[in-house]
């Protein structure tokens, strides 16, 4: 390890990166609008503070090997800090440790590592809490009607998907075994897949359904199209999590009952600022910083903090 730092010292003396702060960003994938927003915000923040940003990503959700590779290559490149949204928090701990040994500060964005203190600091929303918020809201909207729920999940093995799913059920006061759950589908968060899956589920359960939970807004849009084709769109509460601008628009249009907004810009800005500060002063950030979530709906219920779609449109991402 000592050898590594010598090497780094030698390279950082070269004129090309004279004095410039270098930041590596590693997201789960390239294409999710959420990560794109994260990247854009980080780029903007880096530009503002005169830092260099190299944005890398896994090739798909679950590409742990790709993330480890990205970390190693960034360390080799001589970055001062790495911002990472870990796909699978356990799989990349060794690589993070090595980065730390090489004097690089590592900050988790959006998703926590396990254990949390594997990284210097975490800037994230609590996905389970986001799910719970949505669950509570839907539960309140149902009033004394019995819930009849269809769930458009992500993928069985994604931690984000699991946390949101569990949080939602908890908020609704249900469990996975409840009879109220009429069916679930794996959608990979893909609109087309969600649509086909929901069409088939609706063919089976008919008009009974009154709630459709969605892992994200594209899936919710697919569910909406399937419900609309059956003439059920107005009778069913569609809930989503994400807070993209198009999702907020769908709330404004009355397609979705609500969405739960996350704030990737905040994570990115705070992350970049922390690395820049570390590079300049050597001071490391620490702890878990909840960047918060916000229920966006135009039909607020008592006892649950929410904002309307106008506020949402001003604060949305992507």
């Amino acid at each position, binding site marked *: 390890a000592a050898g590594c730092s010598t090497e780094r010292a030698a390279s950082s003396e070269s004129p090309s990166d004279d004095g410039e702060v270098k930041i590596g960003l590693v997201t789960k994938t390239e294409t999710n609008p959420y990560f794109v927003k994260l990247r854009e915000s980080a780029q903007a923040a880096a530009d503002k503070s005169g830092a260099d940003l190299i944005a890398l990503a896994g090739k798909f959700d679950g590409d742990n090997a790709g993330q480890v590779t990205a970390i190693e290559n960034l360390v080799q490149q001589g970055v001062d800090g790495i911002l990472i949204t870990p796909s699978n928090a356990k799989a990349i701990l060794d690589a993070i440790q090595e980065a730390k040994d090489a004097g690089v500060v590592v900050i988790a964005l959006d998703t926590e590592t396990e254990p949390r203190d594997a990284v210097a600091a975490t800037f994230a929303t609590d996905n389970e809490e986001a799910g719970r918020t949505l669950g509570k809201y839907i539960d309140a909207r149902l009033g004394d009607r019995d819930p009849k729920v269809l769930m458009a999940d992500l993928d069985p093995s994604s931690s984000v998907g699991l946390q949101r799913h569990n949080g939602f059920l908890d908020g609704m006061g249900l469990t996975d075994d409840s009879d109220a759950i009429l069916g679930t589908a794996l959608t990979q968060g893909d609109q*087309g897949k969600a649509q086909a899956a929901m069409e*088939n589920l609706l*063919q089976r359960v008919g008009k009974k359904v009154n709630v459709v939970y969605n892992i994200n807004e594209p899936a919710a849009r697919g569910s909406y199209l399937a419900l609309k084709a059956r003439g059920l769109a107005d009778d069913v509460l569609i809930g989503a999590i994400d807070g993209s601008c198009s999702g907020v628009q769908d709330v404004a249009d009355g397609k979705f009952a609500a969405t739960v907004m996350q704030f990737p810009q905040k994570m990115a800005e705070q992350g970049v600022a922390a690395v820049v500060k570390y590079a300049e002063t050597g001071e490391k950030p620490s702890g878990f910083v909840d960047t918060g979530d916000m229920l966006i709906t135009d039909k607020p219920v008592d006892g649950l903090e929410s904002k309307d779609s106008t506020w949402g449109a001003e604060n949305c991402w992507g």
Partner: protein
Amino acid sequence: MERRFSQTPALGPTAALLLAIVVFSVGSDTFLNIDNFSFIVQQSVVIATLALGQTIIILTGGIDLANALIAVLGTLVMTRTTLDGVPVVAALALGVLVCALTASVSGLLVAKLRLPSFIVTLGMLTVVTAVANLYSSGTTWPAPDGLLTLMGMKLYLFGRVQFTIGMLFAAALFVLVWVTLTRTAWGRHVYAIGNDAEAARLNGINVKRMLLSVYALAGCIYAMAAWLSLGRTPSADPNAYQLGNLESITAVVIGGTSLFGGRGGVVGTVVGALIVSVLRSGLTQMGIDSNYQNLATGILVIVAVAFDQFTRRRSA
């Protein structure tokens, strides 16, 4: 009987399709119902159209791993240019052009440099994915209502039976390609190249130009799949149809077209695409989880091909 099987290769898959429909109709009381069939067709239209282009390429002995991503790029071009104020017709034309050109790049490499299409299109898959990400800035673009989403427009027969314009359009496209493949010299040359490219060349067929035209036509068909997809899910998403390449190949192969080229046709491909959708729908009606559905689909693919091979071998 045996003779008939080998002459019209779509009979095996068609039997499998009917069998599946019968089984699900018995096994579930929500399956056998005209609405459900309409949905099944709607669900299979995009993959079936991708598979249509794939079929022509596979008939020449090639394969296209980039087809679905080319269509995704098409949806992005059509949508973004429309949002930028380009007239929709021009945006659609631009989308077709981009798809046709992209596919032609593969065709050029296969035809001129005689590279294996598997690896060319694998490379193109990576390239097109990256381009789609860069062009879309990684986000989803909503398709404005109108001509762009025309294919999703619903029609009702007897006020009851649901159709989409896309279903009719795709059907027309299939008939067109079928006629081209079976009733024109161009179509025969496609088969001849798949049979033996050198023999085709010695018979005065311009193999390079043919291959180029095959990939270009396939590209145009992918563009139609893109348009159909905007009708079904009115947004352009760089993340969509990531498995569309393998799904379209599955439809082609279940439909009885040989991966070695020269044998098969588009009728089987339609049936193959429908089989997969019927299976998904039927298993859902029977209350089976997604994971078990995948299991069943995987097994079905193998069984369908084994069955096809079996009838073929007996008739050989």
